[in-house]
């Protein structure tokens, strides 16, 4: 089980139906590499291994569903002896217990989608004590790579915010008033996606005024409610940046119900790349969707194989997220999740 896996190289044409796969950013193989030796893990054949996957949030939104499914599929493909899965249901203490439980159940290799960038230290310690490598996906943790955990696979959320800002500037011509529908308060993703967006707007389009930042808690109905309020009190809004697709779609519903044309009267940019959002984009009700690709399975197992094959694994494996716009939405629909 050595060599590059297929999915690794499946950095293919954007847009065809099979194009949901992740691609790594070639530029970013940053940091010193991590090998089996430096990490101090025992050698292992994945086929006889028990692999554990700790999911952070309920599989109740497209991102999490796709993420878990992709890990499960790939585990089956890789033929691991047993895949343990747990779900922390958005509770950090539960994620720590989950990881400990899987270690107690004899997991040899762990894939963790951290709920939060900080606070998983006890879980990592427990894994380290058992010399079980931990691969983190989708959210980066504030810990020492190659010591507390093996490596990070995922997107750069600040970068996503920046790209959303770019798309917003392009859609609005860099002028007007935008509202930000924030994610859940206190969440790293919210913080990063806000920071990237605000910084980039300040830097590139000082005429684009951010007139409201209100939380929609990553939920469609909350996004809709906040938008309804803003339509009344800030009728001058010309752009909405939603930190996930759900809130963006909620905003669309609110705008339509108030006789405004989303995508036209009010430009909408959101992050994620769910099927519903890309469909809305194709209908012209949105202006751009920055992808945040959840299909970590292939990349994660490929990385694991490389690691056990003795190769050096970079600290961060950043993936290139695609960007959907009104032109490519229709044909990219197959790649949305």
């Amino acid at each position, binding site marked *: 089980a050595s060599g590059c896996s297929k999915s690794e190289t499946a950095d293919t044409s954007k847009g065809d139906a099979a194009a949901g796969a992740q691609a790594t950013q070639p530029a970013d193989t940053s940091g010193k590499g991590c090998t089996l030796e430096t990490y101090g893990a025992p050698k292992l054949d994945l086929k006889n291994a028990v692999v554990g996957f700790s999911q952070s949030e309920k599989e109740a939104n*497209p991102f999490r569903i796709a993420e878990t499914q992709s890990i499960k599929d790939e585990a089956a493909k890789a033929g691991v002896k047993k895949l343990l899965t747990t779900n922390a249901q958005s509770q950090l203490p539960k994620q720590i217990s989950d990881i400990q439980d899987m270690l107690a159940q004899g997991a040899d290799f762990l894939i963790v989608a951290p709920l939060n960038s900080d606070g998983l230290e006890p879980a990592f310690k427990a894994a380290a004590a058992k010399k079980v490598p931990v691969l983190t996906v989708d959210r980066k943790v504030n810990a020492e790579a190659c010591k507390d955990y093996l490596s990070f696979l995922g997107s750069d959320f600040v970068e996503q915010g920046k790209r959303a800002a770019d798309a917003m500037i392009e859609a609005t011509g860099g002028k007007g008033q935008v509202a930000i529908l924030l994610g859940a308060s206190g969440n790293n993703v919210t913080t990063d996606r806000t920071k990237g967006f605000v910084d980039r707007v300040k830097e590139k389009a000082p005429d684009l005024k951010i007139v409201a930042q209100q939380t929609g808690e990553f939920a469609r109905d909350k996004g809709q409610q906040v938008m309804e309020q803003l339509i009344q009190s*800030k009728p001058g809004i010309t752009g909405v940046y939603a930190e996930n697709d759900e809130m963006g779609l909620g905003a669309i519903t609110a705008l339509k119900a108030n006789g405004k044309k989303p995508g036209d009267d009010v430009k909408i940019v959101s992050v994620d790349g769910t099927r*519903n959002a890309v469909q809305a984009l194709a209908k012209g009700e949105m202006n751009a969707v920055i992808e945040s690709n959840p299909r970590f399975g292939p990349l994660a197992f490929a990385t694991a194989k490389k690691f056990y094959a003795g190769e050096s694994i970079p600290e961060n494996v950043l993936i290139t997220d695609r960007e959907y716009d009104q032109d490519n939405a229709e044909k990219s629909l197959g790649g949305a999740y």
Partner: protein
Amino acid sequence: MTPAPATVPGAAAPAPAPPAPAAGSARPWYRDPAWYQAYGVYVAVGALLLFNALFTDRFLTTDNLTTQLVQVAPIVIVALGMALVIGTEGVDLSVGSAMALAAALLPLYLGYGLVPALVLALLAGAVTGLVNGVLVSVVGLQPIVATLALFVGGRGLALVLADGQLKQIINPDLLSLGTASLLGVPVVVLIAAGLALAVAFLVARTTFGRQIVAIGGNRKAAVLAGLPVKRVLTGVYVLCGTFAALAGILATARLTASDPSSLGTLMELSAITAVVVGGTPLSGGSVRVLGTVAGAVLMQLLRATLVKHDLPDSTAQIAQAAIIVAAVYVARERRSR
């Protein structure tokens, strides 16, 4: 037998003192605690309206006020059911789950037509209520615990039914439930108002309603007076669950999507707050229907005010806390001592 009441000592005793005027004291209303207890919540609503009229742009417009009513309608509906439950000295934590269940069922059965789907969704609410009611009245569990089980499990069940997915609703009849208006008043608002009147009538004028209050006031006495305590209790929870399901249906219609993962989260707290701020004591024995509506409106106006002034989440939450405390402090029952 011989002794007629007239010959009994005390017969000539002075007739009962003439009924004192309601407030019972010479104090002007603005210094009478009883007045604040009765009308405090309406004063608070008035004060908040005044504040917004003065300091919030475009607040006193029909559109905006309609938006507030439309947003508060589902909360009012749930709070009405909650008020009945609280009247029996109970509480129902599972209302959010009942909403999610109703929402999850709609798309599954819309294929058979709107009416069957609606009936099924309402039935689901009634069944959750039935489970709660039986646990409370027959098994004798404490309401918080009895309803906690469905609070935890109900949403899970909804997600299982929906396969964890949010589903777009395209049935135009169902959607019109969320958008249609009658004589300029949105249907959702009409439904909530009609329900409020019905519940007010139920509480004031029906046997069932009076029995609710008696059971909440003294359970033992109600049993000995031959009241059908178990039936009434069960009925109250069934009503509460059904109302929650109705709220779930309306919220879904407005959202144009069935979103069991986030629909109605924290609804139990909103509803309880509305009921309590509206002057219904958590210790049971009385139900204030109009107060409950006013309580819900108060919290809605508060949320709207905070969003419209673009206060950050931290400030918004602290402000909400302060206003809740202030409202219940003013309306508190002062013991005469």
